[in-house]
């Protein structure tokens, strides 16, 4: 008998939605409206000179648009953590930011190697960061929990050997507490 579980590449999925926002988040993802502004940036593998520029650019644009400073901070922190994860843990990828009148939707797609167990990756303190990444000050295993804390909705899909897609939504109306 063949062990199918070991052969099949298991696709993992993770959702977290801030309580009270389930309806609006579901509404958004079931029929995503066209964005007013789209920003794209490349995230090269292990390039810590470039890493973080995309997030800073998005933050500056939202600042010019008059977004609340506390919301700005949350967007910047969530985007930066996700951007660093692509640079630090993957073979590189893309960051696409879709700015709407009431929210920002940011999508990170990378070229693998994927996350075998997303639930485990979400545990504060879990990290597979290598020595070079740790030397830069990363590897606390707090990036994904930090994204979850700051985003109004977080969605991750991945599989061992595949690519990882992480997307989050943050509303401009401050929904935190």
């Amino acid at each position, binding site marked *: 008998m063949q062990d199918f579980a070991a052969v099949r590449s298991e696709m993992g999925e993770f959702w977290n939605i801030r309580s009270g926002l389930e309806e609006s988040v579901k509404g958004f993802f079931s029929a995503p409206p066209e964005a007013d502004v789209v920003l794209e940036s490349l995230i090269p593998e292990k390039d810590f000179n470039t890493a973080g520029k995309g997030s800073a650019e998005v*933050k500056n644009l939202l600042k010019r648009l008059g977004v609340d400073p506390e919301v700005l901070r949350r967007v910047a922190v969530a985007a930066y953590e996700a951007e660093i994860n692509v640079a630090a843990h993957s073979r590189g990828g893309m960051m696409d930011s879709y700015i709407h009148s009431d929210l920002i939707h940011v999508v990170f797609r990378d070229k693998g190697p994927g996350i075998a167990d997303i639930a485990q990756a979400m545990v504060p303190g879990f990290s597979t960061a290598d020595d070079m990444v740790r030397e830069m000050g990363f590897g606390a295993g707090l990036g994904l929990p930090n994204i979850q804390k700051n985003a109004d909705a977080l969605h991750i899909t991945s599989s061992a050997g595949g690519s990882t897609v992480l997307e989050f939504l943050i509303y401009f109306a401050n929904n935190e507490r």
Partner: protein
Amino acid sequence: MYLKDIVTILEGETLIPSADLAVEVPCAFASDLISDILMCTKEPTLLLTGLTNNQVIRLADMIDIVGIIFVRGKRPLDEIVEMARERKLPLICTKMTMYRSSGLLFNAGLRSCKI
């Protein structure tokens, strides 16, 4: 407490001579872990750290850092000092350890940041 008082207490050296040291510092946080710093900084904060790479400067693009103290004699490269200059971010070096620096500032009345 002002940044210039902090320079005095830590017997610090200012790496950007043009930086404004008459800045009020409401609170401080000390860590060598970037995610830790991002998680704990929600108000204007003085950062004490042993990290001297460019990502520690880039942090100031994301969160409100009023200045960085590099502890235990660590010194960033010129290009990193330049990044800070562009951002008008004061950089200060001290020979004191992270523990001693934090202790002296705390005793002088600088509170820790709210987490």
